[in-house]
């Protein structure tokens, strides 16, 4: 019973944080463009993402004739459910998350790819040329971005000698954050995360000036609300996961807190929150300062620059650990 309550609390927290981080992203993005961003709903517009979600949820769904409606709805529900599921592995205030086992890092990597594949399925299920083109671009992008993402995780695993998030955190709490040993891995992680959540300059699958809204062009109503929520959850997951595996998560290097459990947990939570905000700020900054790459440029960029660099980082780490 406790476990179920904890899962429900985690789902609620993930929902709240995902919307909060979307608001933060929009607000920072607006400031970079000399705009004010959301400001009407709630304090400084903080409730705007929630209002948008409810508005979309209450609109009717319109599908083009000839679309596979079942697959679209199934993909929408599955992408949000799987995002909530992988967020259950994220420890928010100490080393323990509701779900944790040896090998969870590999599982998260696998489910991350599965969510991207659901997007391709959706794009091809909609009877619209723009959606099909968006899905094709997404497929082309996956074969480029998943490798650096996987290599950066493999680098982390090779350093900490563990495929568990919890043991990875314990390893970092005893020393320094792993970004010190894997700076190229961190850069690859941030860039491939941006491509996963389709942020500029890697937003070719939904480039609005070329293919309207890409794979989500003809999706509306509550299905679109779920896909938007999935994207927000993905941003939250990638930022907090990056903060955990590269920046030490809710711990500070060489800093042991006194044995006051509740105080510890609050402080740990604040530390992770700030680190996650930092990663989202970094993503938003890159997004604000760059222009969109064409899909062939994205592929060339990842295969010719990012993958070789991350592979060199991984090989160097393995040689170093053998020595």
């Amino acid at each position: 019973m406790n476990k179920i309550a904890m899962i429900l609390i985690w789902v609620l927290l993930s929902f709240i944080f995902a919307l909060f981080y979307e608001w933060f992203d929009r607000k920072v993005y607006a400031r970079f463009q000399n705009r004010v961003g959301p400001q009407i709903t709630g304090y400084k517009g903080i409730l705007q993402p929630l209002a948008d979600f409810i508005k979309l949820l209450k609109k009717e769904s319109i599908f083009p004739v000839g679309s596979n409606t079942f697959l679209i709805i199934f993909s929408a529900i599955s992408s949000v459910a799987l995002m909530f599921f992988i967020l259950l592995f994220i420890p928010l205030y100490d080393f323990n998350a509701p779900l944790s086992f040896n090998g969870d890092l590999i599982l998260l990597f696998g489910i991350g790819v599965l969510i991207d594949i659901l997007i391709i399925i959706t794009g091809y299920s909609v009877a619209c040329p723009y959606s099909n083109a968006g899905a094709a671009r997404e497929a082309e992008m996956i074969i480029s971005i998943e490798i650096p993402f996987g290599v950066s995780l493999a680098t982390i695993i090779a350093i900490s000698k563990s495929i568990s998030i919890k043991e990875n955190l314990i390893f970092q709490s005893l020393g320094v954050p792993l970004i010190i040993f894997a700076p190229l891995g961190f850069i690859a992680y941030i860039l491939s995360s941006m491509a996963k959540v389709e942020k500029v300059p890697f937003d070719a699958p939904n480039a609005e000036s070329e293919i309207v809204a890409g794979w989500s062009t003809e999706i509306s109503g509550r299905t679109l609300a779920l896909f938007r929520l999935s994207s927000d959850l993905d941003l939250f997951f990638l930022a907090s996961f990056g903060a955990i595996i590269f920046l030490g998560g809710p711990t500070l290097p060489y800093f042991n807190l006194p044995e006051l459990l509740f105080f510890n947990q609050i402080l740990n939570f604040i530390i992770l929150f700030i680190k996650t905000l930092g990663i989202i700020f970094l993503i938003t900054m890159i997004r604000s300062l760059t222009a969109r790459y064409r899909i062939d440029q994205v592929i060339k960029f990842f295969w010719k620059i990012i993958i070789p660099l991350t592979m060199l980082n991984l090989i160097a780490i393995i040689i170093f650990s053998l020595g």
Partner: protein
Amino acid sequence: MIIIDVLVSIFIVYLVVFIIYLLGNKKKRNSDTYLCGERTTAIKVKYKVRWIFYASLFIAFDATIVLVAITSLSLNIVTIIFLVLITLSLLFIPKEEERDE
């Protein structure tokens, strides 16, 4: 025990999302897709042959990385040779690629 936890978690998150979905507007209708005023349908996107090269490399890399990650506790010189060889395969990527669209 962990398998039961995972299955229960998946069931709960699916249930929660399905409830959220049911709370939405249930009205649904179909419409035709228009493109510049003309009715259109789905299209088959053409792929270039070179994507097969990238896809094969992707499969090779994906399998390697997961294997390296899983066997991280017993890394040895063979692993490094394997990684170096697969990294060298990147040299075979065509130098100049034409624009896609």
